[in-house]
């Protein structure tokens, strides 16, 4: 019995009799389950590795007794806490110990999802058909007809049927072993003890998640003697909660995790950082576009590639040593909705990253052009897809406008999706935002893992550049 603390220091400060007695009422089943758990931990030699998760309910003070690592969880959340411990230290043996209110009511989502996940933890579920700690209210496992503080005339079907957790959990793919046991006689206790041992062993052997439901006695809230309660469990609970193995598919050991890596090389490689700086081509900030901060807007429908083009502009600017930002804005649809991108390129620091009055607007469709063209101030530049905008709106005086058939050029090249690169070529020719090689390099770098696409994109860029002829204003 070395897995119990020598003295229950946490039980009322370990004073007097409480130093060696549990807080449970006479005849309560929890003490037995604690004992079987302690014996299993001892037999398997895993006391140091064990972390017990105490629930909320009568067994909230599990940590008073078991001399293992202890963590006390919020109501119903023990399986989630258990998973946190298990992934923090895959060598630890984590026991999620829960009562019926905790597991079968408030914590249903946590237990069902943890069970289906199947990560090896051991779940001990003590079902005594009543809320103990709060004072005898109806539990999810309270029987039909059973009186409780919140079903004073007996539970009716209108209050829901008793929740059969072992069957529910056994119906999932995740767990490897599910059994329901009881405590009401020596034979049942022997089976319970074995089931608890097996459930812990399956975790020790990295074979999977095991779930043991224990039908337990609560003489206090059933208003019976301990002996009568044992009989009640046998006669009343068993027909609703049949005992036995509900699932047993013991697989080969499978759970294994490497230790997390903390070497700089792995991290730098994972995030794709590189010591190599892209070449610079610019000799100075493109002041000819006005000031030290250039606002751009690229607007179209989802799938037009506005965001990709915006990202390429942002990267190109940062490669050149400027500051740049890109903010996307999407409609709620995943595809086909609106898709706008605000880009700023600044000599020093981008201060306001939004582009309510863009110096450069690239519009991929008519609604975008109609919406944003009026925001472009005099001296600004508008490029739009003349393949789809056949009837452009009137433009503000002093704005340079270029209608370029982005889509037609892209389709002629064999891939409509490169229309955003055509647009970037056109933007290059129309604005000389950066030296030509700056954007070409950004495009090549973006495609470094898809080299086969580089020639097509290069060509799209070139055709976009060639297509720009100043349109009448």
């Amino acid at each position, binding site marked *: 019995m070395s897995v119990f603390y*020598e003295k229950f220091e946490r039980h009322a400060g370990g004073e007097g009799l409480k130093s060696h007695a549990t807080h449970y009422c006479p005849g309560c089943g929890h003490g037995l389950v604690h004992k079987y758990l302690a014996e299993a931990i001892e037999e398997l030699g895993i006391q140091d590795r064990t972390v017990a998760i105490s629930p909320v309910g009568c067994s909230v003070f599990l940590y008073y007794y078991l001399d293992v690592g202890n963590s*006390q969880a919020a109501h119903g959340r023990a399986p989630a*806490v258990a998973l946190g*411990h298990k992934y*923090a230290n895959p060598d630890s043996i984590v026991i999620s110990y829960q009562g019926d209110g905790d597991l079968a009511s408030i914590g249903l989502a946590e237990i069902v999802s943890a069970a289906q996940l199947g990560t090896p933890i051991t779940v001990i579920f003590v079902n005594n058909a009543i809320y103990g700690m709060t004072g005898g209210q109806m539990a999810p496992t309270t029987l039909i007809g059973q009186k409780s503080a919140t079903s004073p005339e007996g539970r009716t079907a209108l209050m829901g049927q008793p929740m059969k957790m072992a069957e529910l959990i056994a119906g999932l793919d995740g767990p490897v072993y599910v059994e329901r046991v009881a405590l009401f006689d020596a034979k049942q206790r022997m089976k319970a003890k074995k089931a608890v041992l097996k459930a812990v062993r399956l975790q020790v052997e990295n074979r999977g998640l095991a779930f043991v439901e224990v039908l337990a006695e609560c003489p206090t809230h059933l208003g019976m003697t301990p002996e009568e309660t044992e009989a009640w469990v046998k006669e009343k609970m068993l027909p609703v909660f049949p005992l036995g193995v509900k699932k047993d598919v013991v697989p080969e050991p499978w759970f294994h995790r490497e230790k997390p890596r903390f070497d700089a090389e792995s*991290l*730098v490689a994972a995030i794709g950082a590189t010591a190599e700086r892209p070449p610079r081509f610019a000799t100075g900030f493109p002041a000819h576009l006005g000031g030290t901060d250039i606002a751009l807007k690229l607007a179209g429908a989802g799938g037009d590639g506005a965001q990709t083009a915006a990202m390429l502009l942002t990267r190109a600017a940062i490669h050149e040593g400027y500051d740049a930002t890109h903010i996307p804005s999407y409609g709620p649809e995943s595809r086909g909705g609106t898709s706008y991108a605000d880009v700023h390129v600044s000599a020093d620091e981008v201060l*306001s990253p939004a582009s309510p009055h863009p110096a450069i607007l690239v519009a991929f469709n008519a609604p975008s052009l109609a919406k944003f063209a009026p925001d472009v101030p005099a001296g600004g530049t508008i490029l739009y897809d003349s393949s789809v905008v056949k009837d452009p709106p009137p433009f503000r005086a002093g704005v340079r406008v270029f209608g370029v058939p982005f889509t037609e050029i892209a389709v002629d090249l064999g891939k409509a999706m490169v229309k955003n690169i055509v647009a970037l070529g056109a933007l290059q020719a129309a604005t000389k935002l950066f030296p030509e090689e700056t954007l070409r390099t950004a495009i090549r770098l973006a495609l470094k893992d898809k080299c086969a696409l580089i020639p097509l994109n290069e060509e799209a860029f070139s055709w976009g550049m060639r297509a720009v002829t100043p349109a009448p204003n």
Partner: protein
Amino acid sequence: MPTALRERPKPFLLPEFCKGCGRCIDACAKDCIGPGREIDPRTGLVPVTLNLEACNGCGLCFDACPEPYGLRPQPEGDFELQDPEKLFGERAAPPRPAPIPPRAIPLPPVAPLVLKGNYAAAIGALLAGCRHVFGYPITPSTEGAELMAKLLPKLDGIFLQAVSEVATVNMMYGCGGAGLPCMTFTSSPGFSLMLEGISYMIGAEVPGVFVNVMRGGPGLGNIAPEQADVKLVCRGLGHGNTQAIVLAPSTPQEMLDLTRLAFELSFRYRNPVVVVADGYLGQMTGKVVLPATMMEPGLPDWAVFGDGAHRGNLINSIYLDEKDLENHNARLNEKYRRMEAEERSDAFSCSDATTLVVAFGTPARMAKGAVEALRREGVRVGLFRPLTLWPFPIAALKSFLPNAKRILVVEASNGQLEDELRLALSKAGVAPPLIESVRHAGGILPQAAEIAAAIRASQEVLA
């Protein structure tokens, strides 16, 4: 040779540890155990009586007794002669683990990265040594989880998608309780769901980092940027006496830097740390320079790691005794006071400013544009940007107040930042100057032009 039945140990019982439930009476086939008749004055209960003449040492009574120190095998020898201290067996002293400190590892110099705010925060977490990320997808924070799901397997870490935000925060309670750095990405409605767990983490002193990329509310609201969780993160982290350091980045670079810092603070104070961004900042791409080092986490002495050294530890927020709980709260209050040393802010052109703009997050960036434009016109305006919303950087702000005739609070909420400001001024005993505001809700951010107009208007009144 199996042990002969008669050689097996017989039961013995200290009556004060028997609650008289009688389970053992049925268990004994030899009728050695009977119901007691006398109340034990020490317990007020009636222990069973043993008559072991017929006992064959079958041991079934041990398995029937629910009390750890109830019916037990008779110890070797005559137990009455034993030292009562040794009666329950000898134990080794509880292990006393030494804390293992985190270790800084130099990073090779690399070119600046071009990253979305959410990605930058994720990389900040990786640099801080976080290899455990739990989460539930919610716009506009999802890129953080997505990047973690992609990168962590390469580092033998884990991204675990939980069934809900409720499960997420409890996985963090477990992982943080085991002493390891962990985090989540979420957005306002998801953050609401995490509050229960955050209260438990604070109560049990469990570290963990929450990046809340705030969106429009209340309710389902929308997915556009808002800053309306300030009240929640500064004043409402679940039930009870809770407080956490709240960091407020406004660029992708700060998303990385402050998320990284969040881990350090979280372990320094054994407390969750919240990073509040807005939907714009999470989605915004910008230039990000990596720091010179990354961290390998250590293991604190208090961790429930699941090994021998840490076996004696407990993660727990229950203090049944009122006095104990009051003392626990006093310790937390003392810790909250120490956290006030973490006040951080950024001041831009504040020293001679007659108008101070106070803003954080993306609105602060918009405001900076307005401030710079007005400075070029000779307007004496500055931007004071709290990098910690809690503790509010009141000491730094106070130093600019002698010149400031007016504060303009710019925020994407209904005045929640202004409430924090007013509270901080009031607690510091500072008579506030005139406070005006530019506020938007619903996902509309105050724009530079609007902020500039508000500053101009106030300057004209001042003139």
